[in-house]
């Protein structure tokens, strides 16, 4: 469980996050939605500690991330997996090497054990063996995202963060990625937080949805409640997305 209490963050006097309080439950796909520039990525990076918050608390179960030492943070980060918008795979090593990297860095596993774990993770995200030795630039965008997911789960994390995991992908591949993240969340009982502005993802996997606008928390609920939220800003956001989806359909 991740809990935020009255989180504020500003850049050069411009307040980007204003009094955000919410919680993200384990075993569920928790979505953060909002327009571009609404503060989704800043919120995600603040939870991860890539940005220091101005005020507020960020609790990972019983540990307040804003108060713990750098050493404790490093230890906690080993329990975190992250899938970046662009995949952020290491260019200099191949697919297999990318998934093996956290194992090499943080475990004392034997080479055979590491091979087994790499194979297990890549198999879980449906990457075929022929692609193991390819470099990230030689595989498609969808495959890069899947390899990034495999790398993120290599150390068996308790928390999984995904920043726009299906951006730049065709709708079919996007759905595959969404479903994959949901399945892994259930299987490994992780606390998963996904940043997205894609309503398809909300409909597919929005078990818990946080809508933010201009840095404010506007609404929290599930995909089943989203159409009856009574929140004008959220309705506008959904309507704009529907329009976009209709246009794409044409």
């Amino acid at each position, binding site marked *: 469980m991740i809990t935020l209490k009255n989180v504020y963050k500003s850049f050069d006097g411009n307040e980007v996050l204003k009094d955000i309080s919410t919680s993200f439950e384990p075993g569920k796909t928790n979505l953060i939605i909002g327009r571009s520039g609404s503060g989704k990525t800043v919120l995600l990076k603040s939870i991860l500690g*890539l940005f220091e918050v101005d005020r507020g608390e960020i609790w990972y179960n019983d540990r307040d991330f804003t108060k713990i030492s750098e050493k404790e943070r490093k230890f906690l*980060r080993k329990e975190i997996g*992250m899938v970046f918008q662009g995949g952020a795979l290491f260019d200099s090593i191949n697919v297999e090497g990318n998934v093996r990297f956290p194992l*090499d*860095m*943080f475990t004392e596993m034997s080479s055979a054990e590491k091979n087994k774990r790499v194979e297990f993770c890549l198999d879980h995200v449906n990457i075929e063996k022929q692609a193991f030795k390819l470099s990230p630039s030689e595989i498609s965008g969808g495959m890069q995202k899947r390899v990034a997911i495999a790398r993120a789960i290599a150390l068996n994390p308790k928390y999984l963060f995904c920043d726009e995991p299906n951006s730049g992908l065709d709708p079919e591949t996007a759905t595959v990625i969404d479903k994959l993240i949901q399945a892994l969340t259930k299987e490994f009982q992780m606390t998963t937080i996904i940043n997205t502005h894609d309503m398809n993802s909300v409909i597919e996997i929005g078990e818990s949805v946080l809508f933010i606008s201009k840095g404010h928390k506007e609404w929290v609920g599930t995909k089943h409640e989203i159409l009856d939220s009574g929140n004008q800003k959220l309705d506008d956001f959904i309507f704009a997305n529907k329009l976009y989806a209709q246009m794409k359909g044409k």
Partner: protein
Amino acid sequence: MGFFFHIGRYFALLKRVFAKPEKHKMYFRQLFHEIDSLGVNSVWIVVIISVFIGGIMTIQFAYSMSNPIYPRDLIGFGTRDTLILEFSSTMLALIMAGKMGSNITSEIGTMRVTEQIDSLEIMGVNSASYLILPKIVAVVLIFPFLFIMSVFFGILGGLFTGPLAGVVTVPEFIQGLKFAFVPYYITFSIIKSLVFGFLVASVPAYFGYYVQGGALEVGKASTKAVVNTNILVLFFDLILTRLLLT
């Protein structure tokens, strides 16, 4: 103010670079990779430049000493000392700042803008140390070897070009090479190489690590890194020459 900001941030980065590594084995693996990619891949360019500069220097010395009052042995002597004292340490560092420096900035800068550095940080890896420390150690280790190679091939270039151009004979050139040799010059230049190696790796790494934006900014950072490294190399050359040679 900007100048002091960069100085402060550079030293803050160095503090993170020299932190205790998470896993020594991974750093050693990275070190050997850097020795290969930055060092071994620079050998040919060092050989080619040194042979040509050695040859050119010999011919130019011959022209400036065309007066019969000067013994022709001085051509070999001048070529040797110029190579040892300035070309193979300082000039080579300036050339390597262009080759290795731009490579280091663009590599680390691209990792920054494609969020690979953030990815390392989230895993709990000290990205500054993991990415920069092996590069600094590799460049500092290989610079003295490149210096020795450069002196050797520069002299070889002079030895071939001088007699070929008819400005000096082989025995005269060799006699000049042996004349008034001061071993301390080698020590002095190796000390310079170590300092320059540190600058050539750490300054471009700094510019790459803090790049913000996209491909365009990475390119601009590479240019800035090379210019600033060159200025610092010349500045430290002046200081070290004053401190160690006079």
